[in-house]
Structures are given as C-alpha cells and as structure tokens.
C-alpha cells in the first residue's frame, strides 16, 4: 500500500521522520492536491495524450511495466520509467542523477521531446499556473508518495514473525554474501549514488553512458516486486533475472563498480533473496 499524503506529512513505519523539503516550497495540503491533479492532467503533453501518470502508474507503484518509456506520438525514450517511491528522500533525480531537486526534476519530462514535448511556459499556461507553481505542486505531490510499513519494517522493529524463514535468510544474504546493501542501503534501500553495474556495457562499449562511464543511480527497492522490468533500460524482466545478473558479476567493463563481483549463490539462496525482495511492500 502506498501512502498518499493528503494532509500534514504522516511518515509510515521504517522511514525517517525528517524529509528534506526546500524552505521555498513547504508542503501544504493544497499543493499536494494540486500536484496530484496535475500529475494526472494530460494537458501537460503536446498532443494531450500523455500525463505524468501515463509512465508513473499508481497501480504499478508509479512505474509503467514497459522496458522503455513511451511518450507523445508513440516516441520511445531511452530509459525505463523509474518508480516514484519515497523520492522525497532523494538527493539527486533521474537515472543519471542530473537533477538536483524534485522541483527541477518534475519539469524535465514535460519538456522532453520523447516524453511530453511541451515548453514549460506553455504547459503552465494550459493549467493557469506559473512555471514555479507547476513545479512546486508536482514536487509536493511526489513527496507525498511514500512506501513503508512493509513486513520488513515490522521485522526491523522487533516483530520476528513478520518475515518467514526464507525471507529472513534472504535478508541475511542481502546484507552479507550477496552484497546488495553496499548500494541498496538505508530505509529507502538506495545510497542515492551513481554506480556502473555493467548493464549499459554492450559489445565492448556503453550503449548508454548514463552519468558518464556507464554510471546510473541506485534505485529504491521499495515496492520492487511491482516495478518490473528492471534496470535503467528495463532489460531484465524479473527479479530472478536481476539476481542472476548480479550473481554472475554483471557485465565486466573497465569502469565496473568494485562492489560488483561474482556471488556464487546457490539456487536456494537465490530463491531466498527473491523472497526477501518481495516483502518490501505491504
């Protein structure tokens, strides 16, 4: 279950009480509601066919189930639409981390020719807002999309029955042998940093350099069972595929992150790890 905050922020179990919010854009009920409406408003795309929610579907934990995002006029983007979960805690945005704030991030897809393809001034005019009001409302709404209080969170709080034995074994692997926690760390299961996991390395070169040298930002694993397919290019259809990918040590390349190495997990360990990942949602 996702927590859509309609009033003062209520933080679900497992997340920090403090969420960084810019002083110039304090969260208000009105802004969240306005942002929610804008999020579903197709007027923000050139041909009126696409809203933010087209690629960030609440039913799919704000992802879209496709490998690559599809924008106006059927234009296919370069990357997978990331799940918008707990982004209020983010420190940089987009797969390549190029936006420093949510306020900056939320406007980019509107302008992007492969996504909504509309100049910001025109988009703002269509909904009778200034660009700043548009950005602040959308950012406030995104901050209200929170996921916590998962079985994992209850387990961490001391409810030892919240995870079954396979999930507990998976948690041990996640933090230990499988080395997932080297990057998927903290309450939001991301270090918010850029890493080369080798996914972009194809035929001896980077198919997408990301933030440079094949680096992409660590995505959250909250709600991960609902956000397939995976990786920046959506190239891995299932959680099991992702585990297999990391188990073999990723695609070797000159800039591969030092944390990526063959894991040699047994079949049972892979199953346990997948079971654990599936408990990161309500």
């Amino acid at each position, binding site marked *: 279950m996702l927590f859509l905050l309609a009033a003062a922020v209520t*933080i679900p179990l497992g997340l*920090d*009480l*403090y*969420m*960084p*919010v810019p*002083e110039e854009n304090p969260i208000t009920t009105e802004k969240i509601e306005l942002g929610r409406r804008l999020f579903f408003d197709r007027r923000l795309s050139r041909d009126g066919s696409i809203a933010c929610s087209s690629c960030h579907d609440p039913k799919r934990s704000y992802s879209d189930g496709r490998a690559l995002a599809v924008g106006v006029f059927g234009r296919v983007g370069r990357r997978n639409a990331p799940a918008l979960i707990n982004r209020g805690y983010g420190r940089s945005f987009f797969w390549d981390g190029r936006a420093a704030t949510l306020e900056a991030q939320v406007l980019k897809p509107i302008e992007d020719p492969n996504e909504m393809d509309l100049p910001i001034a025109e988009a703002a005019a269509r909904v009778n807002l200034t660009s700043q009001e548009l950005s602040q409302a959308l950012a406030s709404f995104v901050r209200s999309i929170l996921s916590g209080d998962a079985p994992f969170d209850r*387990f*961490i*709080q*001391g409810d*030892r029955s919240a995870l079954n034995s396979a999930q507990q074994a998976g948690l*041990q692997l996640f*933090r*230990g*042998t499988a080395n997932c*926690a*080297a990057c998927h*760390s*903290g*309450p*939001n299961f991301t*270090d918010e940093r850029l890493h080369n996991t080798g996914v972009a390395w194809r035929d001896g070169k980077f198919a997408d350099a990301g933030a440079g040298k094949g680096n992409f930002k660590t995505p959250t694993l909250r709600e991960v069972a609902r956000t397939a397919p995976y990786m920046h290019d959506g190239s891995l259809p299932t959680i099991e595929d992702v585990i297999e990918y990391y188990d073999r040590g990723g695609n070797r390349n000159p800039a591969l992150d030092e944390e990526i190495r063959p894991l040699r997990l047994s079949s049972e360990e892979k199953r346990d790890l997948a079971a654990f990942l599936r408990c990161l949602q309500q």
Partner: protein
Amino acid sequence: MKRILVGVMAAMLAAAAQNSEAERQLKAAINAELVNGDLKAAIKQYAEIAAKYKNDRAVTAMALVHMAECHQKMGEAESRQIYERVLREYADQKEPAAKARMRLASLGGGVPSHSSIMTRQIWAGPNVADVGPVTADGRYVPYTDWGTGNIALHDLTTGENRDLTHKGTYMDSSEEGEEPVIAPDGKHVAYSWLGKELRYQLRVVGTTENAPSAPRVLYENQEVDWIAPYAWSPDGEWIAVQLQKKDRTAQIGLVNAATGALRVLKSIDWRLANSIFYSPDGRYLLFDLPAGDDTDQRDVFVLATDGSREIPAVMHPAFDVAMGWTPDGKQLLFASNRSGSMGVWALSFQNGRTQGSPVLIKSDIGQAWPLGVSRSGALYFGVRPHGQDLYEAAIDFESGKVISTPSPIVEEFVGANRTPDWSPDGKYLAYQSRRDPTGNGFDILAIRSLNSGEVRELHPKLSWFFGPRWAPDGRRIAVGASDRKGRNGIFTIDPQSGDVSPVVINQPGEYSVLPKWSPDGKKIYFRRGDLTKGQFTLVARDLATGNERLLLRATGEPWPLDISPDGRYLVFGKPDPISRQATLLILPVEGGEPRQVLQLPRPQEFGNFLTWTPDSRSILFRKRLAPTESDAGEVWLAAIDGSSTRQVHLNLANIHDIRIQPGTGKLALTGGIMSGEVWVMENFLSALTAKR
C-alpha cells in the same frame, strides 16, 4: 700567547663537559617525565638543573618549560608562573619561549584579546578517555572506567569517583559500559552497554548514592548492531541517540526515556556524528557529520526534533565539530581547524536560523572533544588520552636481560604514534599515527625509512584500522579494519600507494581481527568472533582460493595472538573455562589440541601483545597485574617448553606492542603513560559579547 690559548681551550673543554652533563641530566629528567611518568621526580630534577646550570640558558629554559608542563599535567597553578618566567627571562631561547607562549595561551589569560577567558585543566589521568557531558551545575561527569568496563561518576569538585554499575572486572565478564550521558537533573545516566552476547543495549542507571538502582534496559533490538546516547532533552523525556543497523548504515533518533520507544529522525548513510547536543529549548539537535565518504572534512547541522527541518549551519572546507549551545540557545558552538589549529567558534542562531559569520572564541584548544556547556556558561571539553609513542630497545632473548633501554624512535606527532611493525627486510617501520583533530577518529599509516629517516604518510580509505602486519614479501600490510561503508574485516594496504583491498569481509554478526601472515605469505591466520553465538574461532584463510580452515573453536576470547617465525604454531591467551585464570596456549597451525604454556594467577591477565622470539622458542608478553586502567603492566619472557619465565625490565610503562626487527633482533615498542584531560573554559560568554 700559547699559555693563554691553552687556558681558553681548557675553559672551553670544561664548559663543553658541563654542557654535556647538563644535557645528560635534562635527558634523564625528560625520561622520568615521559617514559616513567613520575612527574614529581621529574619536577625535582628539572628544578635542580635550572639551579645548577643557570649559565646554560638553553638547557635551563628547556628544563623550566618541562617543569611547568609537569605542574600543568598535575593541575597545579605553578605552571603559569614558570611559563611567565621563561618568557620574562629566557625570551632569547626561541624554542622554549615559543612553547611557553603556546602553553600560556592554552591556559588562558596569556592572550590579550581573550584576556577575560579563563581556561584550566580540571581532571587528568588514565581513566579520562570516554567521559560524557558535564551536569548543568558543572559538578559531575560520567565516564567509562576502562580498567573494569564499569560506568562511573566523577565529582569535578572533590575529585572522587563512584561506580554506577557493578559488573566486576574484565576477568569476571567482558561486558562494558560506553558513552555515558547524564540526565539534566543529574539523577540518571544513560549509556551504551556491550553485553555478554556482544550486542549493544541502551541502558539507564540511577546516580543517587544512598538509593542505588539496578540498570534498566531502555532499548534493545537484534536488528541494531550498536546504539549510544548523546544527549538528554532538557525535560528529561527523550534521549538523543545514534545507532547502527545491520546494513551498517547509521541513524540519529530519539528514544523515549520512559518507554524506550525509538523515533528515527534522520538516516546518515555510513557516517557517524562526533557529538549531538539538545538545544536549551529542546527544539533542535546540533550535530556534525563528515561531508562525504572520502573526506575528513566535517560540517555542522541543526535538526528540528519534530523532524520538520534541518539547517546546514556550518558548511566549510575545514574540520568542524559540534561543541554545544550557549545557555540562552542563541549561539551554537563548534570547534574548527579553519584557522590552522582547532579553536572554539560561535555562530548566532535565532528564530530557527543561523545568522552572520562565526566568531572565534578561543584558538589552540588541542585535540578536544566537547563535554557541553554548564548553566553558568562554562564550556567543558576533553583532550583525548595521549602519551603513547614508539621506542626502540634491545634484549637478550635467552636471559631476558636488557641490552639497551627504550629510546624514542619517532620525533614527529609526539604522543600519537603506536602499533609498529618492521618490514621483512628490516629497513622500514610501519606504524599508526593519530591525526584526527578531535583525537577520536582516523589514523594515518606512516612508513619510516630507517636509512634516511624519511616518513611517508599513507591515508588508506578506511574508517579505522589497527595492528599493521607486513606481508613476508613486503608488498602488502594486513590490518583489522572497517571500510568507509562500515564493513569490518581484514584488509591489506599497499605500502606504496595506500590502496586498500579486502581479504576477509565479515558477515553480519561477525568480526575478524588480529591478522597474522604465514611465513610464505600464502595464508592469513586470524580470530573471528560470532556475535550471534558468542563464539570465537581461530581461522586460516588461503589467500589464493579464499578457502578457510577452522583451527579452534572457543567460548572464551582468544587474545592476543601471534604466529611463530617458523610458521608452525599460533600462540594466544585465553581465560580458562573453569578457573577463569588467564592461560597462554600454543596451537599447531594445522589445528588440533592447544597446549598450555603457563597460567597467570587471578587477577592477572595477558595484555595487548604476544611476540615470539626469532628462534621460535620463547614468547614475550605483557602481564597486567591488576584490572585497572592505571596498571602499567610488566613484560615477561616465557620459554614455550615451560623451562623458564623471566621478567624483562625494560623500564618503560604501559608497553602495548613489541615487534622484533628481522636480522638485528632490535625491538620496536609502543609505550608510555596515556593520560586524558578535562578542561573548562570560563567567562567565554562575556568575551564573546565583547567581540560581537
């Protein structure tokens, strides 16, 4: 003419002889002060030198400065007068005069612009290591008695100490209290407790002398590896804590002092705050964090206790750490090395915002850690224990007789150097040197060339490391360490580049320490602790394959550990499971039954090191005579066939390591009296007002 020349030469020779005698006596006095730690004897010797060799101004000035330093260490006021005398009478003596000027400045009153600030030392000694913030009335500080592991209370007025926990000694139990923080009403102390299962709990104990209370577990969670209190809210309802979870990331939170409920305020990755202070109105926490993974820079933040906002208060390329709040909550205090040395700075904080620029209150406070501000506006701070250094000496490995007594090896960063190890060719000495401006954090790895005296400093990307051991091929140095993502284990450091490689990464609940190389460099032997089972193992790891072999499983903690030079045996200390006496055991590297070499009568223990002699026939070890932090210990030499056990009179207190130089058999030692200090800075508020 010839007679005159002869007379002049005779006078010169006599003067030279006197000079060398003065210098010899000065050296002996310095030895009494620094090596033996006998400050009273040293003061007497310095006074005699100053009286006897008045004409030797250099020696006399230096003797006076040392004498003043001894008085200062003992908390005696004479130090000021002697420093002033040096400046008055020996201003031409550059080095002693500079030292006196610096010391006077640190005492306060010597710097005209800060003339109203009074800084004085109020407690010093070997136990002054893990001291918590002062009570609001400035009378008490809680601390950890590292001799026993108990939490205790020190009365700054009377100098009396009183145990608040009663766990016995480390021979009785390995449990220990850490990071004590006293409540605003002074009636309770919160602390971190490392239990028998090697898991941390947050506990609270009463301080009322006539109504002792049993410690209460306030917070315990199997998913939390470590938790420690940092500050009580002014109303005593909440305790600000820092904790580390099993994924090794850390959080700052509040624990309810009545219910133990945890409210997580902020996750802080793999970083840790040095200190956290509640604002006087209870609305904010002041703390510091490293600016990133690969920097030693720290910045200071203010976080609302309701989680509503965070204010980056001090963002600067320098090393900045939180020191506390002024009693009115209108200034936040921090220590910074932005002026070249650590000083105390103040920054206005009003209406939830910082205002203006920081103002320097006092420079040159040394490697200080903050102990808070009293109600009256006095700032308290500690200076980490220092005094350990590297020495070289020689002994006869047959008889244990001392051939040459310890003399200092390293002249730089005096008091901050430890854990030496010789390179396999004996040409270099690697050692740790503490460089953190608060004395609480990072070490560098120094590589000293014995031929040139040149020292190369390596800054390995590790959050801490300990006990460097040079590989037999000289190309790696193994350490027990934690990387900057909080992963503990055994790592190697390249002695040329400082690059770090993991060898053993602990799984959750494990820790691995004391790496020892096999003579062929193909294996590392080490001790692994399993926190979940309270069990210890000795393990051999093949570096090529990563395969491990279990050599010994033990319930008691094997410590210390060494491998024989011929590579056939491990030696380790361990408490006997029945008698609980400290027992020295040797174990074939293939495994099997360990054989007892000797046993120490209670309460004696093995301390810090075991070192095999080059012929693999005897073992040097430190014997702790009593479970107190002030115990200086003794060095003994035991033949492994049990034929002899002899004390080695090295005449150096507190020897922590002995490493033997390949080829020459010369010893490198860590030793010296460790002493921490607590200081108070009074009247800084009026000086600050005047400055503003």
